[in-house]
Each structure stands twice: as structure tokens, then as C-alpha cells.
């Protein structure tokens, strides 16, 4: 099947219960995630918007592992989705216990620990870069079939266009409406990053690395430490 036929079939599948579903990009993207989860028997699918390693946020997700895998990669600052975003090439890890997952040993170990066995990250490509990734994961190992992979890539393209053309959707005059709802859980991390940068007289990216390292060493979530920093219970210059 060519991409046009695939696109039409996927759009029909996600809008079959009501034709107006495509009018709201957020709703459409949510349905695309569920489509992929059901069609490919996944345990999670997440659409992640990114403008760099430090500013990624999940726009929509489906399945029990959607938040898990995305959250882990943000927490660790490494993983297949960052690679897919930076390279513009899909990263396919059909077995996280295998050698090729060793590019991200910390991520692979953490994902396996929560029951994720396979992870596939597809870039949302826009020349010359990209705007994020569509991340798929499964609680059993194994490669996606060629058909599934082709479906997933077309789904990623539909989702990308839905995000980009959101500003032309009536009732949503700008991107701000869409973005207001995503990544709000990361705000406290950005604020803490600024405070740590001021405390250490460091760049913000070094400050974020310090925050991430503190989370890793203590085994606590970055969010919790960031909360302590913002509420002035923890300082990094002591």
C-alpha cells in the first residue's frame, strides 16, 4: 500500500465514530496513539514534542507505558527518542536486553525494570530538523513487522501535520493553546534549573545536569528534588 492509501486508512480508522474528530488536533493525536497501541499490540505510545534534550514534553499518550518511557528519557537525559530527534532516523530496539540497547545502558535497565522490553522511536521530521518523536513500546520483545512500521511512520507524519497546522484550526488560533496543556509538569524543573544556575554561577545546561545527577545518585525523581529547590529546602551551593 502506498503512503497515500495508508494515510487514508489510518485517518478513517481514527475518525470512524465521528467525522468531526479531526477538527481538534489534540483529540486527533490522542486517537492516533490509541490506534497504534491497538493495531500493534503495544503497551504504550507517546507523542513527544522536543526542541532539544532539555525541553521535551509529552503531548499525548496511550497505554500503560506511555508516560513511563517518555518520563524515563527526560529524567535520564538519554535514550532512543533523543537519538531519533537529533538524527531524524528511526531508532528500533526490539529487545532492550540485547547488545544494541547498550548505547543507553541506564535507560535500558530502567525501562526493563518497569516491564518495557522493546522500544521504537520515530522522528517527527520537518526539514531541516524535527519537532519531536512518536515513541512506541511493548512489554514483550520483538520487532515490528514491515507493515506495522510503515503504519507507524505514516501515523507519525499525520501527527506532525496535526501539530504544525493546529494554528489554522478554527477556535485554536495559535499554538499557545495546544502548548499550554503540555509539559506543565516540567515547569518546576526549569525553575529549579534557573535557581541552581544562579546558586552555582553556572550555565543552565550545566545546572540541569547537576539536578539530573543529584536525582540519579539519590534515586529520587528530578521533579521531587526540583520541588525542594524551588521551595528553598535544598541548595546546590552548600
Amino acid at each position, binding site marked *: 500500500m502506498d503512503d497515500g492509501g495508508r494515510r487514508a486508512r489510518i485517518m478513517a480508522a481514527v475518525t470512524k465514530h465521528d467525522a468531526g474528530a479531526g477538527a481538534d488536533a489534540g483529540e486527533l493525536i490522542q486517537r492516533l496513539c490509541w490506534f497504534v497501541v491497538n493495531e500493534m499490540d503495544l503497551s504504550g505510545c507517546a507523542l513527544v*514534542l522536543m526542541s532539544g534534550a532539555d*525541553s521535551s514534553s509529552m503531548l499525548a499518550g496511550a497505554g500503560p507505558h506511555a508516560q513511563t518511557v517518555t518520563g524515563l528519557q527526560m529524567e535520564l537525559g538519554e535514550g532512543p527518542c533523543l537519538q531519533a530527534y537529533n538524527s531524524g532516523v528511526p531508532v528500533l530496539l526490539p529487545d532492550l536486553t540485547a547488545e544494541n540497547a547498550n548505547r543507553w545502558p541506564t535507560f535500558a535497565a530502567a525501562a526493563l525494570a518497569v516491564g518495557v522490553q522493546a522500544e521504537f522511536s520515530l522522528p517527527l521530521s520537518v*526539514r531541516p530538523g524535527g519537532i519531536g518523536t512518536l515513541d512506541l513500546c511493548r512489554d514483550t520483545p520483538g520487532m515490528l513487522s514491515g507493515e506495522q512500521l510503515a503504519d507507524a511512520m505514516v501515523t507519525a507524519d499525520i501527527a506532525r501535520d496535526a501539530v*504544525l497546522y493546529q494554528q489554522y484550526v478554527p477556535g485554536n488560533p495559535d499554538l499557545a493553546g495546544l502548548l499550554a496543556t503540555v509539559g506543565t509538569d516540567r515547569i518546576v524543573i*526549569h*525553575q529549579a534549573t*534557573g*535557581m541552581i*544556575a544562579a546558586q552555582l554561577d553556572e550555565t543552565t545546561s550545566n545546572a540541569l545536569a547537576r539536578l539530573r545527577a543529584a536525582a540519579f545518585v539519590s534515586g529520587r525523581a528530578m521533579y521531587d528534588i526540583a520541588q525542594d529547590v524551588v521551595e528553598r529546602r535544598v541548595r546546590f551551593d552548600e
Partner: protein
Amino acid sequence: MNGGSGSMSEIGGPSARPDDSGPDRQREDVARDTVLARAFVRLADTLASDFDVVDFLQSLSADSVEIVGAEAAGVMLADARGGLRLIASSDERMRLLELFELQGAQGPCLDAFSSGQAVQANAADSRSRWPVFAPHASDAGFQMMCAVPLRIRTNVIGALNLFRGTDTPFTGAEMDLAQAMAEVAAIGLTQERALRERSLLAGQLQAALNSRVVIEQAKGMLAEYLNMTMDEAFTLLRNYARDHNRKLSELAGDITCRKISRAALVQRRGQEP
């Protein structure tokens, strides 16, 4: 598409000699096919990173003059409001003529654009169809003129004008060829526009994502430097941006990369109500 049953080897200006099938003629065919193939490759190549719409349409003008057998050619494109604008011409005489066409709001290019159909006229036709434009064409030395729309299915984005100094009509095959070149150019331009629009939107999205991060980080820095709450930090940031006529995200970026010093921020705090 305009009628005409010619194959590529029959295409040519008035000097073509269809009866001659000797080796010279075959060599000419090959040479012409090569020119044609190269022109179509150029027309399809719109996705290069250094694509330039004026260069692209300039080469459409030059190629169509050579391939269709005309003296001059020009291309007009619709602007955002639907009006035509002159983009490229094969020579200066043509450029002036097309300006007259736009000024008088009449002429072959405008008709091809508004009807979506190919148009052809000789000197007498042109005087009755376009009384304001025709004298300019005749003064410039042109007797035969045609125009084909730059269209994709029903969507017309511009038109290609071709002029001859002689009164030899454009054959059906020549008109077909001009139309084919115009259509390939239209497809290429539309693809390039879609891609450009998408990367513009992607850039805006990235900027929006980045600006949120940097604004929160700047609030954190202000909160730490000036020992204030995040809300107070945001108010200071917003007032500072307004007073200096700066964008919030740019100001935030200047703060996080220390272009605005801590001392300046402390001083600014003193000025807050």
C-alpha cells in the same frame, strides 16, 4: 490540455523539416530530446536546500523559449491576495511588455491565469481581444503570442507567456509542450511552498517550546538572585520587558546567559513599585 497529436520528435520551430529522416535529422532529434530531458529535470528539482524561486522561473522562461521555439518568454505568479506578479522574463523587452500587461489588466497571461486554459492570438486577434495591450506587443516587435497556465488540476498559481516575432502560429504540439513544462513547474513550486511552510511552522513550534523553558529558567534565576517568589519574578520580568520594549523570551534568554548582569537586575528591582 490544448489539442495536438505530435510526438516529441515533431516538435520544433518553423525551421523543422519533418520529411528529412536522414542521420542529421536523427542527431538533431537526440540533441533536442537531451535538451528537453535536462529542462524537465531542472523543473522537477525544487527541493534543493538553496532553491530560489526567481532562478527557477528564470530557467523555465529560458528553457521554454529554446524548446517551444519562441523569441521571448515570461512567467507571472499569483501573490497571496490572488493578483499576478511578474517574476521572471527571458529578456528586458519581455519584462516591459509583461508590465504593460499587468498595468492594463489585460493580455494573454491574465487570460490564461483567469481561465486556467491555454490562450493563443496573432496580431489581429490581439488587437480585438486586448486593445490596450496589443499596441505594446506590436511596438516590441511581437506578432504571435500564447500563454499557458501554471496549474495543478484546478488550482492555477500563475501563467507562462510566450511570444514570437513572426506570424507563425504555435502548433498544438508546441502548446502541449509549453503546458507540460508549466504544469511540472507548478507541481514543483507547490511542493516547495508546502515544505517551506512546514519548516516555518516547525520553527515557530520550536521557538515556542524553547521560550517556555527559558522563561521558567529566568524566573528561577531572578527568584534566587533577588530572593523573591516565582510570581514576583514573573512580574519583574514582564515589567522589564514592557519598559524596554523587549520580547519576554528574548529578555529571559539574555538573563539566563548573563547578558544582563545580576547587578542590573538588583538595580531594576529598586525601580519596581
